[in-house]
């Protein structure tokens, strides 16, 4: 062996031989492992920002062109359910943060409780979302599959929404652009919901591992990184909510 690969100092070499079971073989120290995976997660979230960025660009252009259609389209969304869902998500971000904290404090019971709560809140979010989507289906506001512009050509035909907003009828060409609004609504909330579903899946996996005590022995990297993901998905919603629900209100 050539001298070029001089031995690293003694402590490093020692750490290599006596590392904890969760340290992967190719890392020198646990903190290196933590740093690396944490950094990777941030980078991944950056790619996610770019991914949603494309959708937001399309949204901004369409909204700029077809503003009246976007306004009346947004009137079809229930601000009540939207607010409820926002609250649920913010709450779940809080419980997730508490989960990370419990893992850091090595409290297994608390970790399980908070992860479970986050899991349930995630499901509640999806439940509310599906109620909203179902309503769109009932009112024929699903572009491509079942769509009718009646609510916009003749707002009075939609008494509930009309009573609240007293929208003026849209010209036919503008009314047809509400389909663009709902297309983007479904694309954006759908993409967000897909991230929620993946998140809930991983949460389920984490709960099972947590029961076996995987995260409460000092190695909570996975919980922390998942927490970052969960907060990110939450933040996406914080943008989606005003952009889709509150168009004419700010």
């Amino acid at each position, binding site marked *: 062996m050539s001298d070029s690969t001089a031995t690293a100092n003694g402590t490093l070499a020692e750490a290599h031989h006596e590392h904890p079971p969760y340290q992967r073989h190719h890392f020198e120290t646990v903190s290196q492992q933590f740093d690396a995976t944490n950094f990777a997660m941030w980078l991944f979230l950056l790619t996610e920002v770019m991914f949603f960025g494309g959708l937001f660009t399309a949204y901004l252009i369409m909204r700029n062109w077809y503003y009246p259609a976007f306004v009346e389209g947004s009137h079809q969304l229930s601000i009540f359910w939207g607010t409820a869902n926002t609250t649920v998500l913010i709450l779940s971000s809080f419980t997730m943060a508490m989960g990370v904290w419990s893992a850091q404090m090595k409290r297994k019971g608390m970790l399980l409780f908070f992860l479970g709560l986050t899991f349930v809140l995630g499901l509640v979010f999806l439940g509310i979302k599906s109620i909203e989507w179902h309503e769109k289906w009932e009112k024929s506001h699903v572009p491509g599959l079942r769509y009718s512009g009646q609510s916009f050509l003749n707002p009075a035909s939609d008494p509930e929404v009309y009573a609240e907003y007293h929208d003026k009828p849209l010209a036919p*060409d*503008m009314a047809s652009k509400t389909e663009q609004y709902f297309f983007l609504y479904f694309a954006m909330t759908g993409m967000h919901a897909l991230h929620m579903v993946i998140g809930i899946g991983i949460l389920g996996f984490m709960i099972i591992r947590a029961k076996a005590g995987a995260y409460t022995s000092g190695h909570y990297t996975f919980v922390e990184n998942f927490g970052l993901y969960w907060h990110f998905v939450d933040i996406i919603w914080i943008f989606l909510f005003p952009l889709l629900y509150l168009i004419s209100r700010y």
Partner: protein
Amino acid sequence: MSHISPVLWQFLVKWLTNFALFPPEASKIAPQADALYFFMVLVSLVGLTIVVLLIVGFSILYSKKRHPEAVQIEGSTLLEATWTIIPLGLFLIMFVWGALLYFRIYTPPANAMNIYVVGKQWMWKAEHPGGQHEIDSLHVPTGRAVQLTIISQDVFHSFSIPAFRVKREAIPGRYTTVWFEATTPGTYHLFCTQYCGTNHSQMIGDVVVMTPDDFRKWLQGSTSGHSLAQDGERLFASLSCNACHNTRPDARGPNLVGVYGSHLALANGQTVTVDDAYLRQAILNPSQNITQGYAPIMPTYQGQISEEGVFALVEYLKNLDSDYRIQQTLNTTVLPADSEGKAGGQTPAAAKAGGQGRGPGEVQQ
């Protein structure tokens, strides 16, 4: 040369006789474009020569045989600066020169003769203001600036005339323009250069450049009997545009006389200059283009008028200079046959001159 196969020989002869490095220069801009092109070729050749000389020279001088021990050198800020600044300077010259050329090619002069071009899978249709229609060919005179207003009816196409060094994308849903002034009579290639589906390579044609006299003869020989503006007038009547845009004091739509070129205040607070693109938008997407003071009642004509039809309407509106002509169309609706005799008196050239001579008037402020 008996040992060369006859096929190969013929081929070589053919190649040598037809050999060309660049296409004919048949427009006023072509020599200017080529000047920049040759400047760039020159710079590239010099650059390439320097790189090759450096590589070959150093390879010979410092090969291991001649120079067994390398001498370590860290680098040189002076040299780095040299080969940063000199290329940058050259590139900036090319940038400025190129930009000047680009602005020239894409900024039509005010007195240009306008020809409308529609691209569709897989043909080019040209509409002259005088009512001459052409498919896969374009006749233009020498010595006169010609502006093309281009649109695609389906997918992206690209209108390319290599001999003129001009090219412009035909985009669905919006007008693009390009202009040229042909200099040498002859027949040149017209290509679609943007991939547009199965028969992309069949979407080709001829650009025929004629002397002004020949062109005049050609115009007379290929007329369809009525000008593009007259086509537009007929369409204006048959689509019942005049039901609202009828110049009466109680009209539901704004008066369109002299609207072309004016600054128009819209209901949404914007002010627009009325040009071809705006007119097209206003016809196809009226609710986004409501003139201030009018109700959004105009139906959309999206899907009901072909792009050629829109061109005809735009040409009609461009040349609309008196209330009288609109009122005539009201009769047209009732008696379509009647209109031809009445409106046919105006020659395309006169209509054009009328359109150009009018200053931008303020309407509906």
